[in-house]
């Protein structure tokens, strides 16, 4: 089966002005450096990584909010960078997003009814009657578990969890095929997080959606995703089936990242020492493997050449020169 979304060797560089007004020079910030992955229909793909790893830039590229520097993104086999205005309008009915901070992504001056039905008015306003639009908005608000009378409220009258539900309703009212979720629950309280995560997986099943979830919360990603990519400084270091990646991570960075997550298990001994140092400067990234200055297994080869993603075992790829040796010592 053809994947719904295929990202091929995508590169994104941002020019950054340095120096004074008259002596302006440009440096390039390498946000994404040759990332490839594909998402199958109905899957839930996760992108994990620390801040500055380029995961949000990728979502912006997919949403056509930024231009790709190099490489291509194919949606159902069609190159999205070659879309005409008409194609783009169609594409935006197919691919929707739910932003990180639901509270600020809802217009405070609109009633919930208007917020939820606006996508319909924009895209299908000519073909649907007012009443039909209203009916659909009501149907959506019930689907996300809110009483229909909330449609008359303004966003400030809702709690954080309810706002997130409205944001979900607004994104799926056009019945998109792909939904991009950027940190869908990180702004919510623990007791509300579980509600929203359960709701998302329920809706995915009912509406036959494909999800791309971007998050730094690894435990959450493990719980909801089927496939996962771990990013570091614009590169995917490890890519594979979620279960395999979590059960036996191959890349030293993935291992360190998993070990660093605090676990609600008292007395858990930390076998793996803390990762030293911090993420590098994306304007002057380290040579070779981007992770080598923090890696305790680094050898000369790591400083010279950048490793590529290699399939170590079925559905599990890793970009590390020493992956073979490391997995043997596990």
């Amino acid at each position: 089966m053809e994947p719904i979304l295929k990202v091929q060797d995508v590169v994104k560089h941002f020019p950054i002005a340095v120096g004074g007004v008259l002596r302006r020079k440009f440096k390039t910030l390498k946000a994404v450096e040759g990332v490839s992955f594909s998402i199958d229909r109905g899957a839930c793909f996760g992108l994990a990584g620390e801040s500055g790893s380029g995961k949000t830039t990728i979502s912006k590229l997919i949403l056509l909010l930024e231009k790709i520097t190099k490489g291509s993104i194919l949606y159902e086999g069609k190159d999205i960078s070659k879309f005409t205005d008409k194609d783009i309008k169609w594409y935006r009915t197919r691919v929707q997003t739910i932003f990180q901070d639901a509270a600020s992504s809802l217009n405070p001056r609109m009633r919930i009814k208007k917020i939820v039905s606006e996508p319909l008015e924009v895209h299908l306003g000519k073909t649907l009657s007012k009443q039909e639009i209203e009916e659909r908005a009501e149907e959506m608000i019930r689907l996300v578990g809110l009483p229909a009378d909330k449609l008359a409220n303004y966003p400030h009258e809702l709690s954080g969890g309810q706002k997130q539900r409205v944001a979900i309703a607004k994104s799926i009212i056009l019945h998109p095929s792909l939904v991009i979720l950027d940190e869908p629950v990180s702004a919510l309280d623990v007791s509300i997080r579980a509600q929203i995560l359960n709701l998302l997986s329920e809706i995915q099943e009912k509406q036959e959606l494909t999800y791309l979830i971007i998050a730094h919360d690894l435990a959450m990603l493990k719980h909801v995703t089927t496939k996962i990519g771990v990013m570091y400084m614009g590169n995917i270091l490890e890519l594979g089936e979620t279960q395999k990646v979590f059960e036996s991570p191959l890349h030293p960075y993935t291992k360190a990242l998993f070990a660093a997550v605090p676990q609600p298990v008292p007395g858990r001994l930390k076998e793996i020492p803390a990762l030293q140092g911090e993420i590098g400067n994306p304007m002057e990234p380290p040579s070779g493997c981007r992770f080598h200055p923090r890696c305790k297994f680094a050898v000369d080869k790591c400083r010279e050449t950048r490793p590529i993603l290699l399939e170590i075992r079925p559905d599990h790829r890793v970009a590390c020169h020493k992956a073979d040796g490391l997995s043997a010592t596990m």
Partner: protein
Amino acid sequence: MDLMTKKRILSVEDLKTYFFTRAGVIKAVDGVSFTVDEGESLGIAGESGCGKSITCLSLVRLVPQPAGRIVSGKILFEGQDILTKKEEEMRQWRGKVIAMILQDPLTSLNPCFTIGNQVSEPFKLEKGNDQRKNIKQQAIDVLRSVKIPIPERRMNDYPFQFSGGMRQRVLAAIAIARNPRLLIADEPTTSLDVTIQDQFLRLLKDMQKQTNMGLVMITHDMGIVAETCDRVAIMYAGRIVESGTVQRVFLNPAHPYTEALMEALPKMESKSKTLFQIKGEPPNLLQLPAGCSFWPRCHKVIDICRIEYPPLFPVTNGGEASCWLLQKNKDK
């Protein structure tokens, strides 16, 4: 460690901090009691709006005025009641005996002053410490102790030149500069990445081991509590609903809220697909339900829960919890 040699440094008794607003009285902290010993870390955990931050602001008497007021209770710090101190005395205490690390390292540092300047400030306050050279050396030393590389050179940098993790370490340096007896850390790592968070928490534990200070760690992350604290108090709607050693509370939670919180967390080890979910949302503090504040969301609610707020009952393996179910167990 021998229990007998531990000195109690903080004991809070029935603390009540209310906010008087036009809409009504908000009981942000409503009768909270806990203690902290020397070298011990206490975690205060709960969701947003449960009163954990206001509890801590009360400890240093920095509750937002004029709406907020400490209505009653006692805060005994090494035997002395903080609430009866004069404001001038309190100023001397803050930073010297009780220090605080706040959530957001960028807004806590002044962007217009160099790091050196800001780290030197606590040393300048020290009486009889007026030699500039001396102060500079002390600042460099304390920056080194929080593992800032080449501190001599970084002294003249401004906060924007530091990364998030380094800024938080600078704040930790300022907090421990005068060897406080108690350190309050209010969500110290929420703005940090996991690997940096891990580094910072280890640093915090190391600092505590060296100085034997008490630590109050406020967080909503149960993982952080489990890994860094000795004891934990779970707060809900302004009250402590359960407290005890981390071991006991995490392995045998007695209060249904604690139990549900543990179940609702996606865990790295867990297998099941749907998460256990707590129904409803945290209550509005202006319209608390009658009886126990948690009963509308509780999956084990019994009749008495709707009528009367449960007192704290002792739990079998240590600690206490305020839930009527424990009384039933006791009577059996």
